[in-house]
């Protein structure tokens, strides 16, 4: 079963190569912390997780079957992207057309999210211009 989501696959691959490395480094930085077995609080989370799963399953079982071309998701907004984007935007990759133009504003938001994360990481653990002050929290 394939999903024909080449752009998504590509992104996941790139993220795996680039970000996973950082994730690994971050984990290395705090690996001396060891896992202790702790069973006492497991019941309530279990119930919450199962409840969420059941509610979701209840709804998902009602969706149009997988890959059904008649599903409403494919009949209303999406056809315009596939049929008109060649004329309106003029590039063959429809995902790029939607991402960069039809819903370009979401992408601006997405870049802003990345920037926000960058700012946050810099504030938290970035190298700072002055050396650390006395009695600081670190």
């Amino acid at each position, binding site marked *: *079963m394939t*999903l*024909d*989501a*080449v*752009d*998504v696959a590509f*992104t996941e691959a790139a*993220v795996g190569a680039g*970000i996973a490395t*950082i*994730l690994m480094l*971050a*984990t290395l*930085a*705090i690996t001396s*912390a060891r*896992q*202790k077995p*702790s069973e006492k*609080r*497991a019941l*309530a*989370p*279990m119930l*919450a997780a199962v409840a*969420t*799963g059941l509610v*979701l*399953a209840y709804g*998902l079982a009602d*969706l149009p079957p*997988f*890959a059904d*071309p008649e*599903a409403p*998701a*494919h009949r209303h*907004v999406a056809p315009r*992207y*596939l049929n008109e984007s*060649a004329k309106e935007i003029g590039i*063959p*990759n*429809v*995902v790029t*057309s*939607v*991402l960069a133009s039809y819903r370009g504003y*979401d992408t601006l938001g*997405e870049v802003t*999210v*990345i920037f926000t*994360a960058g700012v*946050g*990481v810099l504030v*938290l*653990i970035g190298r700072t211009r002055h050396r650390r002050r006395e009695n600081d*929290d*670190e």
Partner: protein
Amino acid sequence: MSLLSEIFAYFNYWVVVILIMLGMYVVMANPNLVKKVIGLNIFQTAVFIFYISMGEIEGGTAPILDDAFTRYANPLPHVLILTAIVVGVATTALALALAVRIYRAYESVEEDEIDAEDARAEVQE
């Protein structure tokens, strides 16, 4: 529709449900902050699978226009999930940065140890 094809038609969705339960459980039950972040990632990945699944069309190809094909997968869910993946990565990076700082401040990333430490500081005040 036979039972088997019924199960198969919704196979992706079952995976989504199981991953969501797994992710939520790890997020809530595991006291290790780094593992909580991993739980969040599982949770988010489940939603990515849900979105891509709903974009697929029987007999469609990747939505890159070419004269050889007439039927394409729905590009919109792909776009949405690209955004969501990016948001997920950004959240992970920030969460890990916080975990690193917490480790420097408490010398632990175990929730119960951190709480115990805070309780001790509270008594001293």
